């Protein structure tokens, strides 16, 4: 959540929960790269920079790859 808040400071909590690259106006290619870099740094995982994953998909990816509760 903190990563999304940092990359998309204009989104509300609920908007982040349902955020997808298609539904979020601010989610351009730069935001994708920034989001990937922030998540990589925070969780020590590797994310494809061209992967267009929604918030829930990223959450599920992190649950699989690291000890995220």
């Amino acid at each position, binding site marked *: 959540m903190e990563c999304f808040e*940092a990359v998309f400071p204009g989104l509300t909590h609920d908007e982040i929960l349902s955020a997808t690259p298609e539904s979020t106006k601010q989610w351009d290619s730069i935001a994708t790269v*920034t989001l990937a870099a922030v998540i990589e740094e925070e969780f020590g995982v590797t994310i494809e*920079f061209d992967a267009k994953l929604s918030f829930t998909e990223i959450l599920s990816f992190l649950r699989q790859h690291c000890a995220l509760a």
Partner: protein
Amino acid sequence: MKLVDALKLYHHGETRSAEEFRLFIACSFPPLHLSTLTGAYLAKTVPDRRIAVNHGRCGDLIENLQLGNDAKQPNLFVVIEWWDFDPRLSIRSLGGWNDTESILRTVDAACRRLRQNLSKIQAQQIVICLPTLPLPPLFPVQSELLGRTEACLRHAVTDLIHWAISRDRMHVLHPDAIAELSPMTERWDARMDLETGFPYKLTHADSLARMCARLLTGGARRKGIITDADDTLWHGIAGEVGAENVSWSLENDSQVHGLFQQALAVLANKGVLIAIASKNDREVVMKALQRSDLAMEKDAFFPIEAHWGAKSESVSRILRTWNIDPTSVVFIDDNTVEIAEVQARFPNLECRVFPKGDPAAVIELLKWLRDEFGCESSSDENKLRRHSIEQNLIFEAEGEQADPEEFLKTLEASVTIRVAGRSSSRAWELVNKTNQFNLNGCRYTLEQWLARGERESDFVFTVAYQDRFGPLGTIATMAGHTADQRIYLEDWAISCRAFSRRLEYLCLAFLFDRFGKDAISIAFCATDRNHVAQNLLQLLIGSLPRNGNAELILTSERFERQCPRLYQRISYAA
């Protein structure tokens, strides 16, 4: 700084409602996280400004430089990488690595083009970062061996550095400082480079961003160092082993003290004030300072407080003599109890332990001192500071015993008033550093200061002073503009070294005389520290507002009634 924190900080910085601090990043790759991190560091170091970091959109460094210049960007961060000299030096290009002679020719031509274009940049500050990434493995030699082609490439960069550092406004990031923060193996993110075009690992981008922000917002340097003597300036207790047996040499295993002396000597030469606070018999300290092998001039120390009273007493007297704020001073002592005693009395004074038994820590301390006090150039005024403080003590002592009017009459004072313009760094420095006689405490970035000069009727004057006690250098500045029948005095600062000489009256008399106007509108604001300016204005104008900005009006008629007799000989330099 972590990227997630940088994003928040930068976002906060770019949404402030304040005057903008604009930076343009010119590079040939998308600056992505470098831009965010630089914005975040700027947001941290200039908390009273809205931060705007922009960059060019195309993949060509020269074109982006021109874009930044066309947009009249005041601050430029030029980030150059190997492929800006020849695209074949990028892993994103497949131009072939065989023809090294052709690469060298292209690099030469690119260096020339870069110089030409950098010369045309109008920005007030240009921070240049020369290639920080390793070269791709294009040379058919073992990596341990420096081959001819690579040596030629590095030579071309060195030439570019030499050229850039001799230009005003250009600051080159120091390769060693980058290396300290960012080891070579932790700089390049090849995956990121290939996939997004951004070549840096986050930690490397963080280092460059931090250094750039620091160079752009360098701010005021400190002014004075108070050092202990025994086991700090030298090894040993002079009162016990004798002044002739304290040491600061390799032979005596006390080299770090010699290095400390050398570092102080360099800073003293740049105008930093150095004083001694020692619990000792004065004669013992003076005897040690007389030694010919001392690594600095003994005259560089002023004042020398050597007695058995508390260190905080010594520090207090030194600060009074220097007449500077504790925040501008560092106190260094090997004894943590003394440090604690001084710190308790002066919470705003930076106190550092001299780590006598740890050479690496001493080197770190010297580096820290260099960062806090060092500057590339030093104005004549800085060098005069120490001498004029000493002269001022004699001035005050003589003044106390004489009739004030008679004393001023016999000073043989002469004043030179110069039309300085906004490009005078001394004028800017005086306004930004002076506290006690400062109209309103306003501080300006170079960009803000220069922008004021665009008004047609803008003026900046500096005042240099000397009397029979010696020169004080340029000790006052007045800046503002004129309109209709008024002079608008927006900034006025007089160094505390020049008080009690009626220079404040001379400044106002000069303004009335020079512009022939009926009144001066004075942009006043009471601060916690500008009591000397407040006293004068109260005398001339009457009661002053305690809070907020105010426009005070001083008419020529009123001034003439109040102005005492002035004895200075004035010369005027256009």
